[in-house]
């Protein structure tokens, strides 16, 4: 156990490998900052160039990129309400209102601290879970997954900020939009809107996100004018604000631990990914908060919930290495890199190449520390961007965002999709329909339907969801979600009486 750890640590101390982590990290931050372009693009670009490297060095480069993604993606989410990565989308909900209050530096500091500490916690969970990974992965079949997603959707419905009825409408619309495209069960194209090719794979997620967050927001800038920081609020005390943000994290230990656990567990489950984990963590935090009505209005707790669940890549390392089953898109690329370098991830991999496992763990730890350091150092400068007149920001943000929508699939119609989605998203915001529920419905919708169909394929019995202990437990929690507010109301009414 100790020898492979020392081998990995020794390799990390070599200047070449340390530089590779830093290089990967900077690339991850850069790609994370660009809306619509994910760190996966950076990994894909670099994959062929790593063939000449030692396997352990190649892993350090890749893990450097992965480690930088969460914070890189959160920067634009917090400053401009435009997530750089889909996995940081939930950071918009409270991070951006904090920016509008002149607390950009604090929000960035809080996001950076949440990302790094949750990653460290995720790594500890990863190390602890190595002996139990098989049991965990096998315990989560389609029925459990379905109930987990239903639980996530239900939390949104119950705790939607603002008008609950409108929250339910947008959540439903999000689910419906997610169903557009090829139906994996029957093979038909549903809701094609006259398209026979473009919508086959469904509504493109990066283009949809660019539309909802970037274009919708830019329309808001254009209508309001001025600067992002509103009114007489001055962006002051940058360094103080950043450190205040780091300190703020320690005021929300429960939400932080909860989010980190959600991120780690979702990471372990193959095919779910970080987009689900940060929304799920956010909704659970909102539901369990004493002040759910403050979520979406710049509550630091919401930002902690969103950012602490971005550690899913640490959890995703586990099934990737132990079974060769990637838990996320990032770990799928990492799996490709491992195979390219002659490894066969699976049960024997952890036994035979423990030094690579440790290299990935140590590399991810270092990558997170570097990303946070760079982030905290740059928070001052980045926060100043919010004081620039929006007339300069509008065209620059628009072209970069729309280019990001195009870049994912190199399909020009994705630009048109982002524009039209953005105009409708502005309408949602303007007429008090919560965007948060729309996005969560969209992210989880198709997964819900697929898990439901797979569950019934396993056993043609609708009661399958109640016959399996974890699924049943999740169902009980779901029921509790609806009952809890009623109990609270009852208690409050009794207190008043």
């Amino acid at each position, binding site marked *: 156990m100790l020898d492979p750890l020392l081998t990995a640590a020794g390799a990390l101390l070599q200047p070449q490998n340390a530089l590779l982590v830093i290089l990967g990290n900077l690339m991850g931050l850069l790609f994370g900052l660009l809306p619509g372009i994910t760190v996966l693009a950076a990994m894909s670009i670099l994959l062929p160039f790593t063939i000449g490297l030692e396997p352990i060095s190649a892993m350090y480069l890749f893990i450097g990129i992965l480690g930088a993604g969460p914070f890189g993606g959160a920067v634009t989410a917090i400053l401009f309400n435009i997530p750089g990565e889909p996995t940081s989308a939930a950071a918009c909900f409270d991070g951006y209102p904090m920016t509008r209050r002149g607390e950009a530096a604090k929000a960035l500091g809080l996001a950076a601290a949440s990302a790094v500490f949750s990653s460290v916690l995720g790594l500890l969970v990863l190390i602890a879970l190595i002996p139990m990974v098989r049991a965990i992965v096998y315990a989560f079949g389609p029925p459990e997954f379905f109930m987990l997603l239903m639980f996530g959707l239900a939390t949104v419905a119950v705790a939607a900020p603002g008008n609950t009825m409108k929250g339910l409408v947008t959540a439903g619309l999000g689910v419906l939009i997610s169903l557009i495209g090829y139906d994996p069960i*029957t093979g038909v194209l549903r809701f094609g809107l006259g398209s026979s090719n473009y919508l086959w794979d469904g509504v493109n997620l990066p283009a949809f996100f660019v539309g909802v967050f970037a274009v919708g927001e830019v329309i808001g800038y254009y209508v309001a004018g001025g600067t992002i920081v*509103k009114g007489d609020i001055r962006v002051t005390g940058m360094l103080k604000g950043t450190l205040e943000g780091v300190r703020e994290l320690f005021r929300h230990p429960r939400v932080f631990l909860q989010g980190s656990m959600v991120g780690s567990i979702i990471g372990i489950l193959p095919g779910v990914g970080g987009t689900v984990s940060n929304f799920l963590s956010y909704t659970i935090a909102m539901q369990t908060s004493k002040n759910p009505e403050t979520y979406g209005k710049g509550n630091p707790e919401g930002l902690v919930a969103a950012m602490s669940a971005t550690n899913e890549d640490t959890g995703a390392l586990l099934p990737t290495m132990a079974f060769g089953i990637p838990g996320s898109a990032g770990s799928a690329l990492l799996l490709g890199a491992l195979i390219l370098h002659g490894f066969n991830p699976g049960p024997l991999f952890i036994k035979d190449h423990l030094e690579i496992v440790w290299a990935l763990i140590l590399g991810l730890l270092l990558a997170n520390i570097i990303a946070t350091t760079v982030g905290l150092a740059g928070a001052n400068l980045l926060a100043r961007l919010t004081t620039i007149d929006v007339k300069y920001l509008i065209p620059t943000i628009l072209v970069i965002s729309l280019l990001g929508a195009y870049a994912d699939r190199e399909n*020009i119609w994705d630009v048109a999709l982002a524009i039209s989605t953005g105009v409708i998203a502005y309408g949602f915001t*303007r007429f008090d329909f919560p965007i948060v529920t729309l996005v969560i419905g969209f992210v989880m919708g198709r997964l819900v339907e697929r898990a439901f169909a797979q569950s019934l394929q396993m056993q043609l019995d609708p009661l399958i969801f109640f016959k399996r202990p974890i699924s049943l437990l999740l169902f009980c929690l779901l029921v509790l979600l609806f009952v809890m507010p009623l109990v609270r109301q009852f208690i409050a009414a009794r207190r008043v009486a």
Partner: protein
Amino acid sequence: MTGRFAFNLLLLVFAAYFVWSATNYEPQARMIPLVIGGFVLILQSWVTIMDGRTNSAPVEHAEGAPPADEANRVAALTGWMVLFFGLFMLFGTLAAIFLFILLFLGLRRDVHKWIAFAVAGGMSLVVWVLFVRLMRFELYPGVLFGGSLPSL
């Protein structure tokens, strides 16, 4: 007809389209869309009625009242974005970025022409260095320069 009512109607039509389309699919493919679509249709009908009732009362917004010419501003920016899409499609990525920023800023009275030119040129250069040189990304060349339009 107010903007709020029109938007509510748009959402109703959207939900109705899903329900109507779903009825044509096989039972397995239509089950979830029908349930969710029907649910949204009912809720949105309720929201439309309730919003219609409170329409006469002014709606308070956390960030102050929207400007009187809000609809014109939204239409104007939508027009700008359609223009960007047209430029992108015809002339390709780099030319579209340069022309769009130049026109957007250059046509404003409160921005000096040279600043508009500098921002447009600077942004195009950043995109070229980042995407073409560093990422080796293939930018769209534009229909006029050999680019093809993917089928819809």
